């Protein structure tokens, strides 16, 4: 029997494939970014490189969220993008997948705080704030941020928020506006 699921609650094949292709696109685009990252990361400024570019690595999740407007889309897209990046051979290995999950949860929390009703400016703002807090908390343990001096921790936090706010917030908003103009999404 042939069936095509149209329900909003289950994932349709088309949505899954869409999510995965977006993730692969981002996996490829991340590689373009990683050259810039590498240049600073080999110096003691590595934590700054991390926090300056972190927003880029978070984009896939919120973008999938605002395009599909669906519970879980953000986390799943972020995990997939991380998995793709891991498969394409990155120098973070397993940390990739776990970081992807943590980042996705952070972003998803923001949308959850609006009751999954606001997928526009407010949702993206909350998503950026939550992602900054959650990923910073994670790096506190994973990358040992607790061992740096206080001034540096504050600076890193601010840089991180600006990076996430721009890439995973403003830039994602611009992209979604362009997509909305095409009328290709019927959600």
């Amino acid at each position, binding site marked *: *029997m*042939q*069936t*095509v*699921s149209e329900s909003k609650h*289950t*994932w*349709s*094949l*088309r*949505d*899954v*494939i*869409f999510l*995965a*292709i*977006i*993730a*692969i*696109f981002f996996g*490829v*685009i991340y590689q*373009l*970014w990683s050259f810039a990252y*590498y240049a*600073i*990361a*080999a*110096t*003691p*400024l*590595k934590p700054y*490189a991390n926090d300056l570019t972190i927003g880029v690595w978070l*984009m896939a999740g919120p*973008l999938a969220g605002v*395009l599909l407007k669906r519970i879980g889309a953000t986390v799943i897209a972020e995990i997939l993008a991380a998995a793709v990046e*891991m498969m394409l*051979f990155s*120098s*973070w*290995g*397993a*940390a990739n*997948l*776990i970081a992807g999950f943590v980042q996705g949860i952070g972003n998803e929390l923001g949308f959850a705080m609006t009751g999954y009703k606001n997928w526009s400016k407010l949702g993206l703002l909350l998503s950026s704030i939550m992602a900054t807090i959650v990923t910073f908390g*994670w790096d506190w*343990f994973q990358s*040992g941020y607790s*061992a*740096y*001096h206080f001034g*540096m921790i504050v600076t890193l936090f601010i840089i991180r928020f600006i990076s996430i706010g721009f*890439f995973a917030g403003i*830039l994602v908003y611009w*992209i979604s506006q*362009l*997509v909305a103009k*095409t009328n*290709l*999404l019927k959600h």
Partner: protein
Amino acid sequence: MSKQLNASILVIIMIGVGLQLTFAKSVILNIIITWIGLGYLIYCRVSFKMLATMLLVAFPLSLGTWWSFVAFGVADVWHNAWIYSTRLYAYLCLGAAVTLTVNVKQLLLSLSQHLHLSATFAYGLLAAFNLSPRVRRQVKTIRYAAQLRGVTYHLWQPQLYFKSVLAALQWSGDLAEAMTSHGFSEGFSRSTTYHDDLPKWQWGLAILCILTFGIVAFIIKPW
């Protein structure tokens, strides 16, 4: 290669040990995990050239991490520097134990058979992964097409991402339609023609690895 671990088991070990690794502050454990990972990769006959490249590529990151703690750390500088620079290698080898020994197809089919990943996800993801080379080409095409018109798409502008979304929308529609017309039904049970072997002892091994790591990392606490 029947003596290899099942993909699902590798993923469980990778996540189970990987999560604990974040909170374990031990240089010795990091080095042990790195060596076990490398040992498994050599056992699975991953080429030495590949392993050497992998270790070399991660070196700048590890050095940067080490250096940043020496430069900006407040307490216990040397210990921290070694913990976080070796941890990077432990994660690298944990990940490589999965990505360099199983392919995407084995991984997805194993996850769907043993860990209840739904068929829609397993086959949908597989279909999308097969498009990877095309995605690469598309990113190049988008950038070249813009350059022909004298425009450069910078990574902080929305255009490149926007055009990628358009391609993804079109391809996902086409691919889903193609799969449906080839008889893929969503939400229905499938008959499986392949057999993915997962002996019981491998589950035991996964539990043993994760528990042992936890006990050593949080009770014994080596340096």
